[in-house]
């Protein structure tokens, strides 16, 4: 049995740890609120944009138009680009490992094979993993600001659409974490390019276009990619902070539990020591009386 002093030292060390995890929980909670707000606020826009593209799907999917819109062009996939969206920091439970595992599994199932996948890492954790794993990176983005604006994602959009239009890659995917609620986040894969027009929802309407269909679609399609990449990042950030908050809350709870257990052991040890001392003194007194 450890001595009471050792136990006391462990108790105070665990107390310190729990203070840190509690502070991290608070920080994550406030960041989470902001990130969740941002993700829910931007969803209507991307959903409506999706609907708009859906309304134009019949026109956009027409074979003769495809040549005019390189972002829609579907070709045989010989080489693809995968954007892996992780966090810069750890201590967020299984957040990073889940999305990385999902990404690896997705890449393994691709027919073009690992050597034909261009990796773009967003977030330090994913970058570090891919470097250790030995998958070369074509680009990495770390230290993304907490409050993302669409300007922050412009460089990623540029890489994705330039490489696609230039024919360096035939498809672009984003592996990210979809925010569902504070307790649930799911890693997912989203096809960014070529743009997959959503199923035509309504009846085909004969739209009037101003100035003309080509100009409208040429403005709409790049915007759609921007918004989709932006949205996946917002989803990931909200998921990250939620996962971290929950992980830190669990850590704090566990620390409390261990602390209680150790306090119990400490009291027992202390009592045993006192009992031992008393019986020693008593024994000594009896011995002297003889």
């Amino acid at each position: 049995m450890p001595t009471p002093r050792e136990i006391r030292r462990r108790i105070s060390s665990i107390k310190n740890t729990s203070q840190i995890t509690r502070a991290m929980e608070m920080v994550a909670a406030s960041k989470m609120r902001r990130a969740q707000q941002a993700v829910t606020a931007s969803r209507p826009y991307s959903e409506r944009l999706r609907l708009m593209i859906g309304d134009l799907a019949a026109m956009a999917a027409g074979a003769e138009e495809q040549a005019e819109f390189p972002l829609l062009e579907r070709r045989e996939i010989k080489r693809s680009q995968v954007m892996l969206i992780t966090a810069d920091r750890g201590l967020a439970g299984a957040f990073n490992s889940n999305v990385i595992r999902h990404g690896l599994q997705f890449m393994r199932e691709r027919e073009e094979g690992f050597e034909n996948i261009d990796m773009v890492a967003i977030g330090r954790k994913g970058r570090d993993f891919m470097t250790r794993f030995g998958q070369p990176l074509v680009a990495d983005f770390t230290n993304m600001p907490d409050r993302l604006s669409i300007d922050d994602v412009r460089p990623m959009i540029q890489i994705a659409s330039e490489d696609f239009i230039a024919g360096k890659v035939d498809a672009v995917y984003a592996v990210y974490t979809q925010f569902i609620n504070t307790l649930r986040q799911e890693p997912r894969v989203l096809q960014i390019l070529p743009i997959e027009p959503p199923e035509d929802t309504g009846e085909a309407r004969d739209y009037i276009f101003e100035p003309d269909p080509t100009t409208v679609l040429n403005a709409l399609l790049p915007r759609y990619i921007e918004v989709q990449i932006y949205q996946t990042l917002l989803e990931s950030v909200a998921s990250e902070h939620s996962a971290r908050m929950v992980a830190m809350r669990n850590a704090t709870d566990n620390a409390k539990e261990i602390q209680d257990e150790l306090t119990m052991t400490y009291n027992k040890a202390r009592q045993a020591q006192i009992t031992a001392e008393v019986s020693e003194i008593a024994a000594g007194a009896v011995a002297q009386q003889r």
Partner: protein
Amino acid sequence: MAKLSVEIITGERVVYEESDVDMVVAPGADGALGLLPSHAPLFTLLSLGEMRVIKSGEEQSLAVFGGFLEIADDHIRILADAAERAEEIDVDRAEVARERAVSRKSEGTSATEDMMRAELAMRRSMVRLKISRRRQGRQGGGGSSAQSPN
């Protein structure tokens, strides 16, 4: 008679959502567009400018800075790059922004990209100023004469 429903959404938020609207005037890429109920399906790019929504004789005005407009089945869907309601416009900030843009433009030595940005900033602030001035004029002059019938 049929009415319009209108939604104006930016990347950050839903700026405006209204149903039972009588008429919408929007800054289309090819000039102002007046949209009434039973309009044919139309898809247009927006330029920057004032957008007016008329409902039961009352007029609400908004600043829209580029984006897309779709009208189909009496539903108007606007995805704006940025948009503000008239009452949200910060007049002082717009005034300062306009002066800054004008002075940067008159310096005229910087790169074309900077010039374009200054030009755009100037147009944006001028739209803001125009809308908020009109709003103030309306409030000072007519008061709340345009009461809704119900």
